[in-house]
């Protein structure tokens, strides 16, 4: 019997035992794997099941398949365990409600908040074995932190308490739970406060603050005049760029690459400024979905890009002059594909 098997998945994680082998076996016996950024659409009509899927590699128009059976992964939901860290640390959870279960950039047991570890069923739907492994990873993480008598924290971002309107936006959106609010004694007023030991400098708050009260301590890199400006997340596109540079890559003419700490730093103001300073095209390069070190920095950037694309025509700028693309640090070919406008 000739059976065709198609496998749609977000990211294939083969960290668990024997998974890699199973994957290879599947490939060999003809199973087709399709990664997606966007959940495929399923339509059932007249007993016919159709799955439409947009390929992330070709980024082309969606393909669609009809099938006899559709097998959907069971959905695991987090238990009560996630409740208190959520309340204590305002800790962000992923789409399923777990603490970064599917984020390949997070180390085992690591949570969004530095120094807070989560293991077992609050982190993901895990087996006892996995939970035990995570628990020792957490213990290792803690011992690293406690190795020195004092933890030195670097300042990555600062709030100007005179400008802060206490809108609490940053407190709510910081994926690393690094902001609260309180008194600045020297200014005799309350404002948002960044907890240096937890802040990783992603700049998501900077992009979101309506009062422009937050600044990153690292100065924005110089932009050179060029037709195309490419804003590169330092964890993916920037690394791909470094890999290419090490291989004597000839940077395309009229393209200026600029590193950002996270795609989530890129806000509407920054993109509009880029057009104002003469760039004809702006490209935002961020990590794949569910692979953002700052959990939703990439989706924050996507949201802003989508919003702006709708608004650009009213300014007299064609929407296709702004684009967001996803890549992993290893997908150098995607960076190499960036061509001048």
């Amino acid at each position, binding site marked *: 019997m000739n059976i065709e098997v198609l496998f749609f998945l977000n990211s294939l994680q083969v960290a668990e035992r024997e998974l890699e082998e199973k994957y290879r076996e599947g490939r060999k016996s003809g199973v087709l794997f399709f990664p997606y950024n966007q959940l495929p659409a399923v339509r059932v009509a007249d007993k016919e099941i159709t799955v439409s899927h947009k390929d992330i590699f070709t980024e082309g128009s969606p393909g669609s398949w009809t099938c006899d059976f559709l097998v959907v992964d069971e959905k695991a939901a987090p238990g009560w365990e996630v409740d208190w860290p959520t309340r204590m640390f305002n800790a962000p959870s992923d789409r399923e409600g777990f603490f970064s279960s599917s984020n390949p950039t997070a180390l085992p047991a690591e949570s969004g908040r530095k120094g807070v570890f989560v293991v077992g069923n609050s982190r993901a739907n895990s087996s006892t074995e996995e939970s035990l492994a995570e628990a020792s990873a957490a213990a290792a993480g803690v011992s690293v932190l406690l190795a020195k008598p004092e933890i030195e924290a670097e300042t990555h971002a600062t709030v100007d308490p005179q400008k802060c309107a206490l809108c609490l936006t940053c407190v709510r959106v910081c994926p690393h739970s690094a902001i609260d609010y309180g008194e600045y004694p020297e200014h005799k007023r309350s404002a948002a406060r960044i907890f240096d030991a937890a802040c990783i400098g992603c700049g998501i708050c900077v992009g979101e603050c309506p*009062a422009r009260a937050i600044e990153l301590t690292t100065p924005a890199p110089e932009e050179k005049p060029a037709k195309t400006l490419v804003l590169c997340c330092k964890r993916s596109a920037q690394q791909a760029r470094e890999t290419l540079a090490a291989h004597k890559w000839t940077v395309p003419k009229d393209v200026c690459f600029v590193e950002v700490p996270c795609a989530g730093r890129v806000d509407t103001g920054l993109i509009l400024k880029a057009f104002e300073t003469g760039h004809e095209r702006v490209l935002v390069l961020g990590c794949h979905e569910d692979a953002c070190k700052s959990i939703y920095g990439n989706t924050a950037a996507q949201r802003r890009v989508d919003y702006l694309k709708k608004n650009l025509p009213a300014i*007299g700028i064609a929407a296709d002059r702004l684009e967001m693309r996803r890549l992993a640090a290893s997908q150098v070919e995607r960076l190499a594909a960036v061509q001048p406008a």
Partner: protein
Amino acid sequence: MIIAEQKPFERIVEMTAKARNILVAGCGTCVTVCLAGGAKEVAVVASKLRLAAQNAGRKITVTEATIERQCENEFVEKLAPALKGVDTVVSLACGIGVQFLAEAFQNLPILPGVNTRFLGAPSKQGTWQEKCMACGDCRLDKTAGVCPMARCSKNLLNGPCGGSANGKCEVNPQKIECAWQLIIDRMEKLGRLDELEAITPPNDWSTAHDGGVRETASEQAVPAKTEAMKSV
């Protein structure tokens, strides 16, 4: 807090079609908090105006300034230096701020860059909901802390109506909760459900806008020194 949202940019372009030198003025209080008109949005609107003009082949100057509150004369005065050479102001404050600027700067067109929507609060980050319509005679004591004027789509004082189903309002069951369901639920929790049997008579709207333009004065407020001198 006053909740506003930015006008569609096409409208702002239309309003400023003849302007050559525009100041985009932000307000550091309500509209900053509701993400519609603080320093960040001022920069965004200014950028958009510059780009739109440039792409339409028009030469204009656009500057930016944000003050604490556009509804206090002392703060508004601080805008004066920023107005040098300016022929049009787009204010991103609520309607109150726009009117304060218009009053302070009589010879300048002051244009509204936002739509002032309502008195409300965030229901979640980035979404705001109406909570009060400033009726001038708050009855929240009688309705368990849920406002029937602002939150019942029909302003019913003796609700719910027949359009309440599963706790939702028929006007928009996806978005609007039935205020009367909320009132009843909460009255029940407070053990005061029986109070709702009393019929509330028709409302006296004279404390609301029906009584004409409203003014309210504090009897115990000490007048500012300029005023105090006048009454001596």
